[in-house]
């Protein structure tokens, strides 16, 4: 009997165009749109440092030390991009024309002892160009001061100034996934929570006060518990397959790496599907109005998805720094955090904590639903 109900429930779900559209098609369309919108930024972060095209005008006849410094900065170091790409001009007007026609971002004008930095707008490029002049002047000042106070140490000071001391190092976390991949994680979370609709639809189908189908079901000599369990299993399988399709589509067709083994990602999204379905069962057992059974899962899904970073990728971290408890009770944020932690840091304590909380949520939701649904007879509805 279980198998028969399971098959019928499964058929019922996949023949519902509306559910297939929202649960299968919509995430794939949205993933494609995200890829077209953010794909470039995942591969080439817009915040990454890029070589600045600069011009240089030297009105002095002699070769200058500053020019040597600029030439050094045009060389790549330790596999990093060069800081500057230098073009030399004969006059200020020539350089100005090049700047106005976007050939270069800005230019340096060396006239006597003076070095002027000319830029079209403020921003990081302008600040970096200005910082280069400051560093150059700073080194000159250090040497001048030491030459005045401790002339005996001038040679060692000169050696140290010209040597690049590596005083500061970057903390290495290993696998750094792009923050824009967060949008895809949030998309999978949204897709998982969409499965709450499947659960509410299944519960509608067995409630006599909501559908004609429910009336027929109530009359039949079938165990209600078995029917609900079969329906939940069908919904979970349908959603797990839908999520797996989205994950495979993103990884294999859109070629965006989630930063973790595919099987692991699918296992996490399957847990997410179970979470969405169990939340839906809880809603379905609490709500008795058919209109609200549409509106509440939608509002729940969209609110949780928004706070997990679907529309604004920073929000989850913002909540984490101000009120982390909200991230621990938001199912979408839990799923996103679990995927993000697995991709960025591996199987850490946080990863297991997310999995544990999601599992507890599933058990608690189903337990409460079981209490609410038990002994609910047609006469008592």
């Amino acid at each position: 009997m279980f198998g028969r109900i399971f098959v019928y429930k499964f058929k019922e779900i996949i023949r519902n165009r509306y559910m297939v559209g929202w649960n299968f098609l919509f995430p794939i369309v949205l993933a494609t749109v995200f890829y077209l919108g953010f794909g470039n930024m995942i591969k080439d972060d817009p915040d990454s440092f890029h070589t600045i095209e600069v011009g240089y005008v030297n009105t002095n006849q002699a070769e200058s030390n500053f020019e040597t410094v600029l030439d050094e900065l045009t060389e790549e170091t330790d596999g990093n991009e060069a800081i500057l790409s230098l073009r030399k001009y004969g006059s200020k007007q020539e350089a100005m024309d090049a700047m106005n026609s976007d050939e270069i971002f800005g230019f340096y004008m060396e006239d006597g002892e003076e070095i002027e930095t000319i830029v079209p707008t403020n921003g990081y490029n302008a600040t970096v160009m200005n910082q280069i002049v400051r560093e150059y002047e700073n080194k000159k000042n250090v040497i001048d001061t030491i030459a005045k106070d401790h002339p005996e140490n001038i040679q060692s000071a000169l050696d140290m100034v010209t040597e690049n001391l590596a005083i500061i190092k970057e903390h290495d976390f290993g696998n750094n996934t792009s923050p824009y991949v967060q949008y895809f994680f949030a998309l999978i979370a949204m897709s998982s929570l969409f499965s709450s609709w499947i659960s509410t639809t299944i519960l509608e189908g067995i409630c006599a006060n909501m559908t004609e189908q429910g009336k027929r079901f109530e009359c039949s000599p079938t165990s209600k518990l078995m029917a609900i369990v079969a329906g939940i299993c069908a919904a979970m399988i349908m959603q797990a397959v839908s999520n797996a399709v989205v994950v495979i589509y993103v990884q294999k067709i859109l070629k965006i790496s989630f930063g973790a083994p595919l099987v692991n990602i699918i296992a996490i999204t399957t847990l997410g599907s179970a979470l969405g379905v169990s939340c839906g069962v809880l809603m379905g057992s609490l709500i008795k109005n058919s209109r609200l059974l549409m509106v509440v899962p939608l509002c729940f899904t969209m609110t949780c998805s928004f706070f997990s970073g679907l529309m604004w990728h920073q929000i989850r971290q913002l909540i984490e720094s101000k009120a982390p408890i909200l991230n621990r009770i938001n199912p979408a944020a839990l799923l996103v955090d679990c995927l993000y932690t697995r991709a960025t840091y591996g199987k850490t304590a946080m990863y297991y904590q997310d999995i544990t909380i999601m599992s507890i949520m599933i058990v608690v939701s189903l337990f409460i639903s079981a209490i609410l649904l038990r002994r609910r007879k047609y006469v008592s509805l």
Partner: protein
Amino acid sequence: MSVFNAILKSLKANITTIIVYLTIFTVFGNMQAKATTSTQESAFEEVTVKVAVTDNDNSNLSQALVDYLTETQEVVAPGTDDPQVMNDNVRFAIYDYALIIPEGFEEQIKSGDVEDALTYIAPGTTASQFLLTEKLNDYLQDVVVYLNSGYSENEAISLTHDQMVKLSNTQATVVDKSEENHRSYYSGMYTFNGYTLMMLLCVCCACTLTFMKNRDVNNRISVSGMHFFTRNAASIAAVIFIGFAITTVAIIVISLMGLEYENTKFIFYAIDTYTLMFVGLGMAYFICSITVNESLINMVANMFVLSMSFLCGVFVDTQYLSASIVKAAHFLPLYWYTTAIKFINDTPINNIWSRQFASYLLIEVLFAMVFFAAGLIITKKKEQYAI
């Protein structure tokens, strides 16, 4: 008039949708527009980096370093001592840079073994990471050079600080002549409006048109004795009226939100927006010719409009999209709307009314006609085959 009134009354069912989208628009549109607004600049302004400092050394030198950062950058509390959480905070721009001063930092510097004395966390190789790392290296290198040249610790710190203060007078000259690249608040708001207006028009007008297709409503109107021409004219007028009303509300919202900014190009933005209204109406007609199910209308409208918004520069500026995507976007109406908005923003007011601007509007109208035509064909075929 009764048909006209009935259609307007049917809009009541979509009042929640209108409120939701207008709320999204006022909150997110406003945030995005304010974040991307830029004005012409005449003086150099150094970019400051939001840096979180964890001082585990609490020494004279570490305090001097923190003071230097406080004077020149925006120093914030890290909020955690877990490097992993700090990494998440820099990756999601809660702050730009996290500096960790380890215990024994001062002793290490004094001993002469300066390699890797400090640790930082940054979101990859970014401009902010490069800039602050350079500044910190510069500061500490000065201190180390002074210490090794016979100065005491206090002298080295004091000399370095004075030098850094003096260097802050070295400033670039900003020669900002171009009218382009300065995005006004209105440009940002009207760009985001492309999404809101299209969604509102598609959902509200498609649902209203669906109401007219309801068999019961249709039969009652048919037996009323009203002339065929009158009732169709009333339907068309009502839908256009709804479109006009929604567009006007969107324009009023933008004007009210931007009261603090000068709005000299209002008329051109309004013309572009009203032209987009026809695209929205055409699309609504096209969608309701595909389906009469409200949920499906919502789904199809979401898929169409969201996709277009991402591809046509509404949510992500076209400069970040690949060339092939931008080329493909030429075949979408929202691209021409956003291009016209950019054109209005970048062009002096007296030169806006030009052949180029008119061609953008014409292309939008042509798209609207294509959607109407497609909708008519589908409706006719459905009637023909009784689908």
